[in-house]
């Protein structure tokens, strides 16, 4: 094969290819853009749909009671004497969430510190995987375990002793504990939100450059001092954000809470002690939705959904903003 024929072959091929590679029309590109934009728009549409549906469903109760719905403490579905108030459940939600945070946040940060600062990689890698497993457990299984196992641990190890020791003179421990109360709900919620807060915290801690730590160590600082001086200042607002996200999760959790919170109704649902029965916004909806006595009752339940939605959105938006601010404000040292 001399080079002339090779070149001819080559020209042949090129001509053949040119004819095949016809100019593609733009429509496919445009169609594809339409599809992806549509998909992105669908998510916006969903949000709008949610807001509309909840709003529309709760019109009845809000026109019946107005803003008194938010401050009322009755919960009566009996015909002729209807009265619905979200306040007890709002309080129940906040109390359980508060308990969850008080326990969950420090523990999560402790875990994050352990995994990122103390443990060697061959320990921290499998260990962090194990902590992640906590997040993979469905909440119904948490509920099952809390109802049949954990509750008794709490009653025997914590509630009874506290009640016996302080029940008479500290109202916080005043009621006879049976394990189905805000305290148990709060504790199990705290276990549930640990993976969320600790994993975000861990990422934040990892993002602090080692040079900061080295600088502190080289001055003779201990581990704790290094954390305090060189690490925490950077991650403070991010940790807040992580806590917010955990809070959002705690507030929105339904089935777990329903199973262990004791299911009190109306004014009785306002917890007066750690060992009071109560309910949360979510648990009332779960318990009563399918047996709502009237359309007003149903609307009241949806109204609880509105309150819950707004509460959650406020918390989550706050958390996202805090974390994103954290990521933008990175340490001012050029590595």
């Amino acid at each position, binding site marked *: 094969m001399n080079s002339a024929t090779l070149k001819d072959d080559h020209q042949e*091929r*090129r001509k053949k290819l040119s004819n095949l590679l016809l100019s*593609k029309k733009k429509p496919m590109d445009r169609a594809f853009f339409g599809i992806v934009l549509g998909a992105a728009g669908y998510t916006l549409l969903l949000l709008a749909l949610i807001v509309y549906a909840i709003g529309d469903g709760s019109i009845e109760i809000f026109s019946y009671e107005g803003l008194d719905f938010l401050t009322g403490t009755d919960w009566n579905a009996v015909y002729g004497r209807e009265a619905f108030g979200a306040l007890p459940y709002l309080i129940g939600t906040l109390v359980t969430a508060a308990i969850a945070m008080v326990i969950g946040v420090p523990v999560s940060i402790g875990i994050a510190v352990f995994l990122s600062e103390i443990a060697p990689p061959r320990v921290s890698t499998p260990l962090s995987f194990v902590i992640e497993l906590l997040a993979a457990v469905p909440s119904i299984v948490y509920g099952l375990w809390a109802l049949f196992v954990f509750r008794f641990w709490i009653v025997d190890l914590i509630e009874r002793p506290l009640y016996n020791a302080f029940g008479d003179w500290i109202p916080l421990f005043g009621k006879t504990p049976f394990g189905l109360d805000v305290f148990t709900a709060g504790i199990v919620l705290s276990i549930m939100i640990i993976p969320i807060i600790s994993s975000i915290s861990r990422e934040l801690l990892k993002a602090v450059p080692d040079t900061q730590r080295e600088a502190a160590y080289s001055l003779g600082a201990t581990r704790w001092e290094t954390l305090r001086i060189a690490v925490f200042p950077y991650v403070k607002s991010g940790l807040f954000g992580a806590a917010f996200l955990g809070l959002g999760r705690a507030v929105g959790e339904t089935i777990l809470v329903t199973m262990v919170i004791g299911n009190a109704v109306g004014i009785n649902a306002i917890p007066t002690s750690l060992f009071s029965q109560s309910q949360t916004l979510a648990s009332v909806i779960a318990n009563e939705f399918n047996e709502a006595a009237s359309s007003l009752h149903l609307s009241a339940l949806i109204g609880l959904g509105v309150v819950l939605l707004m509460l959650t959105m406020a918390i989550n938006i706050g958390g996202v903003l805090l974390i994103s601010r954290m990521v933008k404000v990175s340490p001012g040292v050029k590595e």
Partner: protein
Amino acid sequence: MSRTLKGPEEELSPTLQVSKISESVEIERPTEVKDIPPPKLSIRNLEAWFGTKRALKGINLDVRENSITAFIGPSGCGKTTLIRCLNRMHEMTPGASAKGQAILDGMDMYDAKVDPVTIKRRIGMVFQKPNPFPTMSIYDNVAAGLKLNGIKDKKLIDDIVRESLEGAALWEEVKNELNKPGMGLSGGQQQRLCIARALAMQPEILLMDEPTSSLDPIASSKIEELVHGMKKDLTVVIVTHNMQQAARVSDFTAFMYLGELIEYGDTKQIFENPRMELTERYISGKFG
């Protein structure tokens, strides 16, 4: 400027004649007149911006057919910007723009009617860092341009893949492993794979943006050999920051500085007898 605008369908026919190019523009002619090949790609008043910052100022030059042309110059002189304008990749950077004319076989690539995507099927590119497609085998990498542009004829693809790998001096090394992942090759082999991938499109011009700068000397020289051999089938433009490479490999050299074309001519002349003082200073290593 006369308008030789043809629609996208006609762009493919290689028989369009060059129409008059305005004589009012100073065109750099190579100073040693030997067998000057006809111009394959004529650049007229090409300007390019990144946002509001101008990166190329009024470039005029003719890239000669079946030759190897090198763009040299210190960092930031615009040689990469220029080469990326030649296949309209420059404007894909967000905020980047270019205007002027780049006339390929009588057709202005920068004309509004021309679809930039089709340009790239005639003018191929090889990048500084080898970038084979990570999820594809060697065979699929080379065939990617063809298959994804709708070519289905398996025999044709097989032939082209083999020919391209031979053209990239890679065939012997991989002929029994065509199904292995492209990423499994060494750096030099990956770059040759990328060259094969570009060659598979049967381009008329191959643009190479510092193709050996991330490679070791042995791999680099393999590629330089390759480039030499490509001359007979296509036109090569190569950007290099390595002057010795330009001297070894190219027929014509263009020296650029701060976005302007300072001097363009026969490589021998540029390196042995530069006309501009700036060129002389760069060549002798006084800056850049």
